[in-house]
């Protein structure tokens, strides 16, 4: 069984930092925004680690928690050896679990945190994730200043960091269930078309989750997918209808809800921060949405194996959140 139900896991507080382009985009309600990509650091990688450290610090301050009140710190990011998270975790005396599922890191860390709380092994857990447009560009693509032009199916990594506290004490937002997806590889090699790579994994996870929970897609007020982009979300809808024979009507894609058309960000945003950023800044702020299914979609590729002519595997993890009234 790939789905797990939770009965006593709640989402407590959250803290979001947005980058300069996100600040000028569709979203507001950021706790903090950056005016430049450096964020008081000399390199982009260090700036990403700084962002995460600041998120954790603010989560602790907002709730007046000490470091000892948090049982686990779970998180990950896009960089090699999830270095941004490791380097931010060194500032805190909190047991640290690093997770990696590319852009599905957030639901995966929620799954781990919720499992620890559900099994009474933890009281409070911080889940954190971040991505940085330019550090990812450096690692996955070309030097930043090279400004390589991309096809319109490509997505741009969003900049920001999001942290949430999961707790056992009852709050307004409950984590109801989570589904861990299978790794799916449809034989696509195009790194500029992540939407197509991740859509089948996303569809599979949504279908599995609905089957396991014995629900229909319409039972949710919104299904928030991670970073399929404008092209990918249409592929998801078409693929789901063709393979599973039912329509997905209430899907919002996080990647396509961050930037304005005028910002010229190709198919939208990507990166692990997209999903929690849109969840916190848009979905949770809207009183219309009570039953929320978030599906993080991750493309598990590395430039090394892409150069060795390998195809791209992808994975999607889902978490069901209910806003209690």
């Amino acid at each position, binding site marked *: 069984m790939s789905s797990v139900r939770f009965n006593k896991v709640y989402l407590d507080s959250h803290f979001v930092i947005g980058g300069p382009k996100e600040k000028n985009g569709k979203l507001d309600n950021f706790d903090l925004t950056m005016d430049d990509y450096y964020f008081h650091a000399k390199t982009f990688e260090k700036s990403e680690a700084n962002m995460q450290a600041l998120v954790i610090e603010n989560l602790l301050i907002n709730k007046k928690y000490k470091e000892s009140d948090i049982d686990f710190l779970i998180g990950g990011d896009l960089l090699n050896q999830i270095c941004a998270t490791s380097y931010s975790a060194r500032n805190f005396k909190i047991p640290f679990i690093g997770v990696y599922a590319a852009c599905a890191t957030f639901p995966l860390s929620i799954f781990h945190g919720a499992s620890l709380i559900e099994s009474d092994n933890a009281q409070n857990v911080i889940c954190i994730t971040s991505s940085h447009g330019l550090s990812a560009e450096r690692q996955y693509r070309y*030097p*930043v200043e090279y400004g390589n*032009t991309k096809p319109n199916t490509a997505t741009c990594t969003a900049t920001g960091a999001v942290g949430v506290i999961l707790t056992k004490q009852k709050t307004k937002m409950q984590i109801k269930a989570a589904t861990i997806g299978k790794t799916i590889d449809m034989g696509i090699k195009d790194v500029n078309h992540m939407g197509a790579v991740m859509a089948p994994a996303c569809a599979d996870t949504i279908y599995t989750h609905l089957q396991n929970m014995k629900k229909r897609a319409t039972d949710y007020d919104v299904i928030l997918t991670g970073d399929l982009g404008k092209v990918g979300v249409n592929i998801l809808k078409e693929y789901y209808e063709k393979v599973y024979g039912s329509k997905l009507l209430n899907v919002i894609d996080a990647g396509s809800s961050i930037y304005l058309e005028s910002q010229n960000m190709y198919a939208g945003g990507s990166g692990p921060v997209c999903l929690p950023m849109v969840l916190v800044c848009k979905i949770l702020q809207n009183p219309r949405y009570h039953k929320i299914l978030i599906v993080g979609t991750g493309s598990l590729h590395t430039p090394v194996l892409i150069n060795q002519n390998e195809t791209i595997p992808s994975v999607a993890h889902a978490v069901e959140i209910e806003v209690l009234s």
Partner: protein
Amino acid sequence: MGIISEGLINLYMMIFGYSRADSMGVACLTIILVTCMLTAFGVFDNLVEKGKCGLIIPTTGFAHSMASATMDYKKDGFIKGIGSNAFKLAGSAILYGVVAAFFFCILGVLLNV
């Protein structure tokens, strides 16, 4: 790009009285210098987005790729950063350029061109 270069070549020939071959070399250097400076000021990548291949083939693209890689890896140190990554993008062009030149030279000698 071609029109600008041709204009530069003629300009140098007129002002400095260079021969056409000399003038071509100087025009090439000018373009490389201007490209590198535009890359350093962070302008060139925005221009490429509009001008696409018309702007990056061949010398400007080469200069831009080297300048951008050098800027990018500056923080990683002189040896492990700039030194080992300056030709990250342009390396292929140099390597296969030299290999191709070698073979065409042999071909030229054999055919007595």
